[in-house]
């Protein structure tokens, strides 16, 4: 093992980012995107496609299918399509890690989210870990995102894990 490899991947600058809340990002929930998301999963329940069916089932409008928490408003100035799962944002590890895999997703729902809602999401880095696996050195980052609706109510909290290697 060379000297460089003994240096941890996680730097002090990265640790300093743990718990720092991001500024809010706007996520819109509209009927077209609810339908597209539901269609892409293969949902067959009409509540995700037909507003009358959704209202008859007690929703304000088409409800978000599980896993869908709105679509961020696209900003061309943010730079093309960007990297997956924010791998190029913030402080970087001591050695470059160019690949990323999704490690896991957890969502807690507190209120219904329906088409017409506008969510504001703030997120923070909750945890950093480094380990070695079959794919070599891995950096495991856990991010927590809180979604509030237009009334300021927390509607969902999502926790995502990314594996960079």
């Amino acid at each position, binding site marked *: 093992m060379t000297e460089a490899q003994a240096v941890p991947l996680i730097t002090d600058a990265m640790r300093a980012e743990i718990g720092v809340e991001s500024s809010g990002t706007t996520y819109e929930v509209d009927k077209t995107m609810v339908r597209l*998301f539901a269609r892409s999963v293969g949902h067959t329940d009409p509540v995700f496609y037909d507003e009358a069916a959704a209202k008859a089932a007690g929703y304000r409008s088409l409800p978000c299918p599980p896993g869908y928490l709105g679509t961020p408003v696209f900003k061309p100035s943010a730079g093309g399509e960007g990297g997956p799962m924010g791998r190029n944002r913030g402080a970087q590890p001591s050695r470059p890690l160019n690949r990323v895999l999704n490690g896991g*997703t957890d969502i807690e729902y507190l209120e219904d989210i329906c088409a017409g809602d506008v969510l504001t999401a703030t997120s923070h880095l909750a945890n950093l870990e480094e380990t070695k696996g079959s794919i070599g050195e891995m950096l495991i980052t856990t991010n927590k995102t809180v979604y509030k609706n237009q009334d300021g109510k927390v509607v969902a909290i999502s926790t995502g894990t990314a594996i960079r290697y």
Partner: protein
Amino acid sequence: MAVTWDEITEGMSVPELKKKPSTQQLVIWAAGSGDFYQIHYDKDFAVGTGLTNIIVHGALKNAFLGQFLHDWVGNEGRIKSYGCSYRGMDYPNDEYTCKGTVTKKYEKDGEKLVDLEIWGENPEGKKTTPGHATLRIGK
């Protein structure tokens, strides 16, 4: 039909949901989810990163588990929380089966709740996405 409270017993299995995502479905998902990472639709790119093939998006497998839960709980109940880890790759055109078992049936703060162990299996029966869920049954 959604499950009813009286039908649920601890240890029971949830009716499974079989999915078989095509490459076309992965492209529709990319648009629906906004995840345009090329390992999910560009085989040359995927192989260039060391994979053997295009892989199914982890979040799509999570959404399949969400469909499986939604179809069981219906529109009177709600998914209170659910999640999974991505422990193994799944490939397009392979069957991916969502399964689950009720681990706990209880009432809390006036709500009828069940906890579940859930997972998605590949054709070899390996649990590539083990997870968990808490559902509210009925209103």
